[in-house]
């Protein structure tokens, strides 16, 4: 029954594209690892991030990672993820996620204009502008 469930989960991720499928594989490995911990009481798990994952993260974060930096970046990210692995062993069943210290409702205000037009001042710190617009490299051929 569980295998059937995992098959559908895999299908769901695979249909949404390769990035999602990679996410699924990662999720599966976390599941397997956490099961390994609960079954065999393994203290800690080494997590390592490969070159393809560094490229994936670089794309998510929109931060270029040069080829000669990949190794160092992956080593340091892996260390941080090792720290995260400590969370897996903790039973959090029934604990509600806490997003914020104060459980208060979002304040709303009347839909009225409160700011005056300051585009000149705000655009004065932009790297490149023309005719009150921000300039970027050509997007449409």
């Amino acid at each position, binding site marked *: 029954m569980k295998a059937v469930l995992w098959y559908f989960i895999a299908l769901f*991720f695979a249909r*949404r594209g390769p*990035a*999602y499928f*990679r*996410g*699924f*594989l*990662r*999720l599966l490995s*976390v599941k397997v690892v956490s099961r390994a911990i609960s079954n065999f009481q393994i203290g800690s798990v080494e997590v390592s991030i490969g070159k393809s994952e560094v490229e994936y*993260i*670089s794309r*998510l*974060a*929109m*931060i*270029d*990672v*040069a080829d000669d930096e990949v190794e160092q*970046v992956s080593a*340091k*990210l892996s*260390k*941080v*993820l*090792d*720290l*995260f692995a*400590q*969370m*897996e062993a*903790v039973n*959090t069943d029934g*604990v*509600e*996620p*806490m*997003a*914020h*210290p*104060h459980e*208060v409702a*979002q*304040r709303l*205000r009347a839909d009225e204009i409160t700011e005056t037009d*300051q585009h000149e*001042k*705000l655009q*004065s*710190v*932009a*790297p*490149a502008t023309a005719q009150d617009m*921000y300039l*970027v*490299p*050509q*997007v449409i051929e």
Partner: protein
Amino acid sequence: MLHTLSVKQMSEKLHAGEISSVELTQHYLDRISQFDPELNAYVTVTPELALEMAREADERLKNGTAGVLTGIPVAHKDIFCTDGVKTTCSSKMLDNFIAPYDAHVVTLLKKAGMPILGKTNMDEFAMGSSSESSYYGPTKNPWDLNAVPGGSSGGAAAVVAANLAPMATGTDTGGSIRQPASFCGITGIKPTYGTVSRFGIIAYASSFDQAGPMSRSAEESAWMLNAMSEFDSRDSTCLDMERPDFAANLGDSLQGLKVGVPAEYFGEGLDPEVEKVVKDAIAEIEKLGATTVPVSLPNKDLAVPSYYVLAPAEASSNLSRYDGVRFGYRCENPTDLQDLYKRSRAEGFGAEVKRRIMVGAYALSAGYYDAYYLKAQRLRRMVRDDFTNAFEQCDVIMGPVAPTPAFNIGEKTDDPTSMYLADLYTIPVNLGGFPGMSVPAGFANGRPVGLHIVGPYFSEAKLLNIGHQFQQVTDWHKQTPAQYQ
């Protein structure tokens, strides 16, 4: 020597007309030119602005519209947007950024009449515990130039400790006011989340970020917190409630105070000399009428991993605004829009900032969201509940701020996680959103050590009262490194 006066004495002399704010401000500007080259605690010094504001303060002192802090100079952490002044967050990304408006804290302290001496150095985007990740180079600890001043508000702590400003603003996301205050032997308080407006404070992790005062004494911090805390509708998480007078209870007796001492805060990894200083300080507070009760914070070890998932996740979202388009650094000759984004960010951010953005983006990405982000949020609640339960048995919790005194420059830069783990006592307080304070309590290996006092929500006045009473019977907060006396 003007800088050896307490803020209270300065204020009395200003009001009595014995000194002028221009005189006082110029004295600090002179000290900055003399000593800051070796400390590197300021990113920007603003002498013209300072003196202009000092002249206005002198007017107010003459015409009777002055308050207790009018004419007292202040240094702002370079995370507070300051209209017309370079505001860098110690990043190359914002090296050319002239803030087009004031943070609400800056507005309030201008209203209080505090001349701005300049902007203090910090860890880049407040991500760090040593002020070493600044684009402008590390700040040095005035007590020992080989040591870090702590971080991320390391410049703020250093300028107060070295008498290069009588007061400074700081921000605390995971300990960034309390740990540098401890490392530099000054007083600093992180108020309850939502007490001080975050408007115009460059965002790191929005559900944790909170600003607070840094000064020599608890009394001075109480005055400054009064001046910088007010409801502000422009910060959606700023609490819409009346602020108390944080200085009103300073003189209260500590008779009957119940101090919770968590065994978990005195375990493995705590430097024995730091432990002794902290225990001696608690004993001193007992002499003032307090009693101690053992309390337990069983999930203490979960705080660091939880924080280092959640804060980077929030950072990856907050720092997406640095795109090379609207403000900040832009790479040369981008080939297309994506190249513009990716290279501007790769070249504009330092290593630790990039690491946290990447970790955060990863933790939020499809497939890992439940395993990392939601899991970390569940742990956040468990850590918070530990404190809530403990506060049923005690009024405040006391312990160390950091496991060691200030470490050496370069000692922890190779292994980011070793620096993360040193935040183990401060981070749980940010996860819960509780107020926390560091008060100078002694020295270990010749470097200052702070006593960490944590209270339930909205207990700032109580924490400041305890700090003030402790400072009536101790003089750690009055000590200054020999070369800066």
